[in-house]
């Protein structure tokens, strides 16, 4: 198919921007989701790679492997659903045009980075997405969103700069080559790898670079949280995948540490998530936990170059699974505070939650199986129990989520759900169940997870978690207040940084020159010369004549 079709991917959001500016948000907001359509279609029927010499150097767009296509597809789907969902979500707020502008630009960036086949395009898309997401996080008024958005932006900018540096180093290492293809086999330096890991890590939000996530998600509108958590933070993982080489001694060396970070991140997210009292904060921690798994996959791929093919598939599946499920959950969390849930709403909501916990017949079970294979492939059998703990933890987390959402339903006078939100949300909720049937790679994995031993292996941690949950509920255990109000050093640091940057101007150093004294001495000096011009000149003549003694 004609490569020029790729131009539609960023072109459609741009067109939407123009429409928005011309017609205003009230008239066209409902149709903006259509701008994801070209990307969705192209993910299904990809076009030929497109080189664009007129743009920034090396620009080249394509999506020809599974990973890219899957990524493009789920991103487009998630964004489309979220777009539709957001129309109602933000209908009552001010500055809708601003919101939609940032929304579309972030969408543009996200899609662009997915179809990028060169570093420049990736960076362009990545930055556009990162910075425009600020507008989404900061959409609501009030100090809390402002602080959250500020921290987000500070870290995003730092991340940008680190990626910028890492990217340049990488280009240099690759001898000026810009195509991501070429980088796969170029060995990396320690600095490059570190810069990229931290830079992308700040976006991806694995421990310990997660600090912005728990603040930003509750602050943003539900639709924004959905895309932020579902699509955007994964861009960091994608970046690491693309930017760092496949088979590299250094990364192999580091992979043990990365595995550890991933594991900590997975457990940390669960642990902290359980302490949250707001559903969206809990989901944010859950994202941290899930990104930890993604990092583990990356580390495995680096550790076992032979495993890379499988890892790519796993990465694609996991991203799709988590992105869609997390999107649905965030929307649900947002809805739970606004509208009255019916029973079937709860059922729908349970689907993605359970999928995340890895229940059979969902995409969760499929990816968990593949994940185990990966761990096996890495000869890391000892890590298996961590997986079990993680699985149980996730289940607990989901239980607490549902419980929290239920708690938020207690307030009176909640309106019924609007029709315009119902459809996209439902679509996303059903995806974890539907997708394994629709999509062949996932279907295979799901089918593989159906044998009994596998079901049991997937189920018993969940049941354990269920038991614990029941126990807690029955006992009526409450969170200790100390744990409820954990200090947030990141927020404090962010505010400090702002104050530091608004340092008052240093008063100009000006030496107090005593004008009068100066004038006085000058006048005396002048008088010395001026009084008696004739006499002074005559004196000077005499003195000059004394020069005769010199010769």
């Amino acid at each position, binding site marked *: 198919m004609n490569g020029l079709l790729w131009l539609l991917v960023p072109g459609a959001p741009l067109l939407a921007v123009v429409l928005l500016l011309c017609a205003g948000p009230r008239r066209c907001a409902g149709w903006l989701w259509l701008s994801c359509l070209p990307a969705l279609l192209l993910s299904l029927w990809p076009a030929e790679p497109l080189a664009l010499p007129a743009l920034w150097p090396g620009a080249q767009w394509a999506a020809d492997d599974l990973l890219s296509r899957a990524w493009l597809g789920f991103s487009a789907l998630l964004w489309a659903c979220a777009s539709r969902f957001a129309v109602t979500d933000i209908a009552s707020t001010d500055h809708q045009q601003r919101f939609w502008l940032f929304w579309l630009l972030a969408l543009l960036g996200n899609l662009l980075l997915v179809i990028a086949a060169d570093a420049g395009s990736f960076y362009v898309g990545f930055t556009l997405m990162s910075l425009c997401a600020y507008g989404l996080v900061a959409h609501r008024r009030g100090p809390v969103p402002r602080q959250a958005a500020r921290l987000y932006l500070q870290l995003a900018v730092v991340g940008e700069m680190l990626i910028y540096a890492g990217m340049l180093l990488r280009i240099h290492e690759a001898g000026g080559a810009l195509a991501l293809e070429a980088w796969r086999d170029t060995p990396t330096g320690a600095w490059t790898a570190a810069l990229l890991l931290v830079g992308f890590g700040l976006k991806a939000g694995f421990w310990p670079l997660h600090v912005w996530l728990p603040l930003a998600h509750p602050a943003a509108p539900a639709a924004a949280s959905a895309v932020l958590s579902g699509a955007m933070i994964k861009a960091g993982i994608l970046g690491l995948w693309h930017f760092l080489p496949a088979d590299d001694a250094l990364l192999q060396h580091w992979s043990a540490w990365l595995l550890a970070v991933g594991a900590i991140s997975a457990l940390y997210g669960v642990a902290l998530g359980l302490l949250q009292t707001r559903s969206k904060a809990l989901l944010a921690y859950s994202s941290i936990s899930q990104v930890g798994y993604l990092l583990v996959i990356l580390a495995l791929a680096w550790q076992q170059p032979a495993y890379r093919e499988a890892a790519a598939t796993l990465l694609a599946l996991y991203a799709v699974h988590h992105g869609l499920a997390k999107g649905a959950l965030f929307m649900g969390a947002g809805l739970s505070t606004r509208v009255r849930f019916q029973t079937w709403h709860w059922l729908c909501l349970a689907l993605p939650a359970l999928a995340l916990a890895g229940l059979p017949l969902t995409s969760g079970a499929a990816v968990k199986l593949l994940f185990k294979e990966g761990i096996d492939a890495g000869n890391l059998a000892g890590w298996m129990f961590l997986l079990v703990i993680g699985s149980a933890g996730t289940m607990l987390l989901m239980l607490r989520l549902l419980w929290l959402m239920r708690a938020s339903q207690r307030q009176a006078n909640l309106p019924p759900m609007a029709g315009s939100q119902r459809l996209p949300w439902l679509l996303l909720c059903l995806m974890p169940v539907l997708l394994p049937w629709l999509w062949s790679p996932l279907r295979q994995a799901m089918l593989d997870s159906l044998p009994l031993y596998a079901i049991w292996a997937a189920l018993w941690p969940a049941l354990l978690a269920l038991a614990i949950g029941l126990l807690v509920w029955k006992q009526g255990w409450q969170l200790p207040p100390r744990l409820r109000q954990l200090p947030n050093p990141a927020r404090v640091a962010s505010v400090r940084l702002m104050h530091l940057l608004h340092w008052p101007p240093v008063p100009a150093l000006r030496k107090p020159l005593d004008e009068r004294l100066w004038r006085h001495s000058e006048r005396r000096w002048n008088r010395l010369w001026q009084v008696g011009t*004739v*006499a002074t000149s005559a004196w000077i*003549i*005499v003195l000059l004549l004394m020069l005769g003694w010199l010769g």
Partner: protein
Amino acid sequence: MSGASLYLGLGVLLWLLGLHGLLRLRHPLRRIMAINLMGSGTFMVMVALASRSGHNDPVLQALVVTGLVVAVSATAFALRLAVAHQAHRSRQRPTGEHEE
């Protein structure tokens, strides 16, 4: 010591005396006299040089004549200027202007 040398020295001495007057004296008339002394000293040096080897040097004497005319013209001008300045000052004095 010959007469010429004597007058040469005298001329130099007069010249210096004039210069000395210029740097020590304030009154315009005295200064003009001092300058005339310098002139006389110079002319004396020239005339002494003209007469040094017995027969007179007409060129030097002619130069002195010219110099003398120049000197007297300038002196006269200076004196008139000094007088005019003095007159102006005495007219200005009541208003408190003071120069040099």
